[in-house]
C-alpha cells in the first residue's frame, strides 16, 4: 500500500500482501456465513424449534487444523524474512551511521566522514549501510516507512539496523515510540542521492564554515556565543561543543527546521527564534526574548551556514 524504496521494505510488503489476501478471504467467508445465518435461517412464522444439533466433531477438528497449517506457512516466511532483513552484524563491525535519539530531535553522525548533523540524513543510493541507533534520554523509535523496519532507540543499549535505499529521493519518517510532549514533532527526513551528489554533500558538511564577511552576520555570530546558544548547539569552528540541541554547523543546507516540522526558510527560522514554544510547544528550547534586531542578525548568520 505504500511505496517501497528498499529491499527490506520489499520483504515487508510481500509478507503483508499475502497476509492481506488471507485476511480478505477469511473476512468474506465470515461475512457471507453470518449473512446466510441471519437471512436464510431467519425464523419464519409458526416455525417450531429447529433440530437441536450440538456439533459436528470432524468439522470442528478441520477448522482447527486448517488455520494451524496456514499459520505454519506464514511462520516460515516470517522467520525467513526476519532473517533477511536483520542480517547479522559482525562483532567488531563499525556502524556507518550513528543515530542518537533525543527529546525531540535526531542526532546523526557518520563514522567514516567525521560529520555530525541533525534530523536530515543523506545516504548514497544502492548502498547497504549499518545504522547504530541509541538514545540519550527516553525510548524513541526510528522509522522511515519506505526504507524498512522500525527500530527502538533505548537508553543504555545500542540497536543495529540495516539501511538501503533502492531509489534516489526524499523519504519522510517519524519517531515511533511515544517519548513525551513533542513526540509528534520528531520527524525524520532521509535523502537518498547518487554517489556524486552524496560525495559533494559530504565535502560540504566536512567544511568548517568561515566567519561571515558581512557585518550583520558577524553580529549574529557574536550573539550566538553571547546569548549562550553555544551552550546547547555546536557549530564547528566555534568554541564549546554541546549535544543538548542539534548541531547547526550546516543548518542552511537542510530542507526543514525543528526536526521536520517546518520548511527551512529565513521567515520560519525567525519565527522559531522569536518564540520556540509557539512553534513546538514543550520543546526544550527556551524563549530568549531576543529583540527584532538580534533575531535578524542571528537569522542572517545561521542562514549563511551552508
Amino acid at each position: 500500500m505504500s511505496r517501497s524504496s528498499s529491499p527490506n521494505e520489499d520483504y515487508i510488503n510481500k509478507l503483508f500482501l499475502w497476509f492481506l489476501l488471507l485476511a480478505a478471504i477469511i473476512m468474506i467467508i465470515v461475512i457471507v456465513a453470518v449473512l446466510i445465518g441471519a437471512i436464510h435461517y431467519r425464523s419464519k412464522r409458526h416455525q417450531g424449534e429447529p433440530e437441536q444439533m450440538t456439533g459436528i466433531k470432524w468439522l470442528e477438528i478441520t477448522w482447527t487444523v486448517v488455520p494451524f497449517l496456514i499459520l505454519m506457512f506464514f511462520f516460515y516466511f516470517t522467520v525467513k524474512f526476519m532473517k533477511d532483513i536483520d542480517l547479522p552484524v559482525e562483532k567488531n563491525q563499525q556502524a556507518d551511521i550513528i543515530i542518537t535519539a533525543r527529546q525531540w530531535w535526531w542526532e546523526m553522525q557518520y563514522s567514516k566522514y567525521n560529520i555530525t548533523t541533525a534530523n536530515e540524513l543523506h545516504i548514497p543510493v544502492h548502498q547497504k549501510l549499518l545504522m547504530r541507533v541509541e538514545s540519550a534520554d527516553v525510548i524513541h523509535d526510528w522509522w522511515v516507512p519506505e526504507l524498512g523496519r522500525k527500530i527502538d532507540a533505548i537508553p543504555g543499549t545500542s540497536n543495529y539496523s540495516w539501511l538501503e535505499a533502492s531509489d534516489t529521493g526524499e523519504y519522510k519518517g517519524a519517531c515511533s515510540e511515544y517519548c513525551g510532549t513533542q513526540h509528534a514533532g520528531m520527524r525524520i527526513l532521509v535523502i537518498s542521492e547518487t554517489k556524486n551528489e552524496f560525495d559533494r554533500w559530504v565535502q560540504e558538511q566536512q567544511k568548517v564554515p568561515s566567519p561571515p564577511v558581512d557585518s550583520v552576520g558577524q553580529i549574529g555570530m557574536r550573539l550566538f556565543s553571547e546569548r549562550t546558544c553555544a551552550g546547547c548547539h555546536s557549530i564547528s569552528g566555534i568554541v564549546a561543543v554541546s549535544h543538548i540541541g542539534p548541531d547547526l554547523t550546516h543548518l542552511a543546507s537542510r530542507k526543514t527546521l525543528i526536526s521536520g516540522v517546518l520548511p527551512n526558510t529565513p521567515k520560519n527560522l525567525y519565527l522559531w527564534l522569536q518564540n520556540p514554544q509557539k512553534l513546538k510547544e514543550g520543546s526544550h528550547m527556551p524563549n530568549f526574548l531576543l529583540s527584532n534586531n538580534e533575531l535578524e542578525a542571528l537569522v542572517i548568520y545561521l542562514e549563511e551556514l551552508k
Partner: protein
Amino acid sequence: MKLNIHIPEPTKPIPDIRTGEGLLQWLSTVDHKLIGIMYLCTALFFFVLGFGEALMMRIQLMRPLNNFLSPEAYNQIFTTHGTNMIFLVLTPMLLGFATYSLPLMIGANEMAFPRLNAFSYWIFLLGGLILYASFFAGGMPNVGWFSYAPLSERFFSSTKGVDYWVISLLLMGIGSVGAALNFVVTTLTMRTKGILMNQLPLFVWMVFINSFLILAAFPVLNAALFMILIDRQFDAHFFVSATGGSPVMWQHLFWGFGHPEVYILALPAFGMVSEVIPVFSRKPIFGYEFIAASSVAIMLLSFGVWAHHMFAVGLGTTFNAFFAASSMLIAVPTGIKIFNWIATMWGGSVQLKTAMLFALALVVNFTIGGLSGVGFSLVPVDWRLTDTYFVVAHIHYVLIGGSLTGGFAAAYYWFPKITGRMLSEKIGKWHFWLYFIGFNCTFFVFHFLGLLGMPRRVYTYPDLPYLGTLNLFSTISACVFGISFILFFWNIFYSLRHGKIAGNNPWNAWTLEWLTSSPPQQKNFEKVPLVRSRRPLWDMLHPEDPDWKRENKNKIKKKGNE
C-alpha cells in the same frame, strides 16, 4: 443449597431507591445483584468521560497541524482515555455482568463471599476516583496507558500524574482480584445440585477461566507498579539505565500483565455471545466442548505471547521467532469460536432481536480485529505497523468490536432480568445500526492511516496526502458513533418507565437465571430443580426431548456401533 455459614434471609422486600433507606441500601449492600448493577452504572459513567476524551482527540486530529489542544493536554487526554476505557469501562462492565449473572446461572442465592464482593467494588471505584483526582493534583498522567520507562521516571515526568496512575491501578487491581476470587470459589462450591463443571453455561465457564487469568496477571502488574513507584518516590534504579536498571524490563513486566489483560477483557464477551447466539437461534451452542477447551488454551497461551508487543525493541531473531510462533498459535483457539458461533446459527431459527444483532456484530468485528492481530504476529509486518494507527485500529476493533459489543449484547439480553422491563426494540435497532456503522466508519480508516505512515500517540500530523481527509472522515463518523450511545442511554431511561413488562423468561432461554422472577427477589431462588444438562429450562419445557436424553442417546449410539 448447603452453605457452611448461615446467612439470614431478609424478611422485608428491598426498599425503593426513592425511599429514605434507598441510598444506604446501595452503599451498604452485599447483594451480588445490587453490586453488579453498581459496576454497570459505574461503567456507564466513566464511559461518558472516556468518550469525551475520545471526542476531544478526534476534534484535535480532524485536520493536520490543528491547535484545538496543546500537546501537553492531548498527551494527558490520550493516556487517560486508554486507562479509563480499559480499567474503568470495560472491566466494570464485564465484572458487573459476571457479578450479576454468575450466581443466578448456577442456581445460587449469593456469591461465596458477599462482603469481599462489596469490598471489590468499592476499592475499584476508589481507584477510579484517584485517577481523576490527579487532574486536581498537578496534571493527569501523560505517558500513555502503558507508561513506558524511563519516560515515566520522575526525571522525565515530574508531575504527580504517574504516581496517581500507579496507585489508581493498584487499587483497581485489588478490586479485580477480589472479584476473580469470588467467581472461582462460587463456581467451584455453590453450583446447585446436578451442575457438573462441564455443564456450566458458557458465560459462567468463560468468567471462571477468566478469573484465573486475573489472578495470575494482576500480581505481575502490581510488581511492576510498585517498582516504578519505588523508583519515583525512593530514588531506586529499576528502570533507569544510567544506574544499572533496565527500561526494557518494565516492558516485559507490563506486557506480562498486559497481554493476559486483553484476554481478560475479551473472554467474558465471548461468554456473553455464547449465551445470546444459541437463544436467538433456538438451538444449543455448536461445539460446546471446543469452545470451552479453546478458552482454556487461550488462558494458558496468553502467558506466552507478551513479547509480541516488543518486536521493535531489538531483542533478536530467535526471541522474536518464539513469540511470533506463540502469537500465531493463540489465534487458532480464538478463531475457531467464530466458526462455532456461525454454525450455531446455521440450521437454526434465527431471531434478529437487538441482542442478537450486537452478538453478530461481535462475530464480524472481532474477526477483523483478530485478523489485524495475526498481522502483527508476522514480525516484519509488525516492524512496519507497530506504533502506527494500524495498532489503534486493531485495539479498537477487538476492544469495542469485541468486548464492548459483547457488553451491549449482554445488556439487551439481561436488561429484562435485571429491571423487569424490556428495552425498546425500536430504539434498539436505531442504536445498533448507528453504533455499527459509526464504529466501523470511525475505526476502519485507521488501518489505512497506519499503512500511510501515521504514528500513534501524536497530537498532530503533517499535511501529507490523505492523512487529513481520512482523519476528518473518522471524526465525523465518531460523532455518529457518539449519537448511538445517546440512543442507548435514552433507551434505558425510556424503558425503565415504559418498557414492556418482561416476565420471568421473555426470550424463552434455557439457563437458570430465567427460572426466577424479573427482577429476582433478594433471595434468588426458593427452589431449583435438579439439573441434568447444560440447558435445565429446555429440559423442563421439553420433557419429551430433554438434552440429557439426547446426550445419552448419542452415547448409546456410539456404544452400539462399537
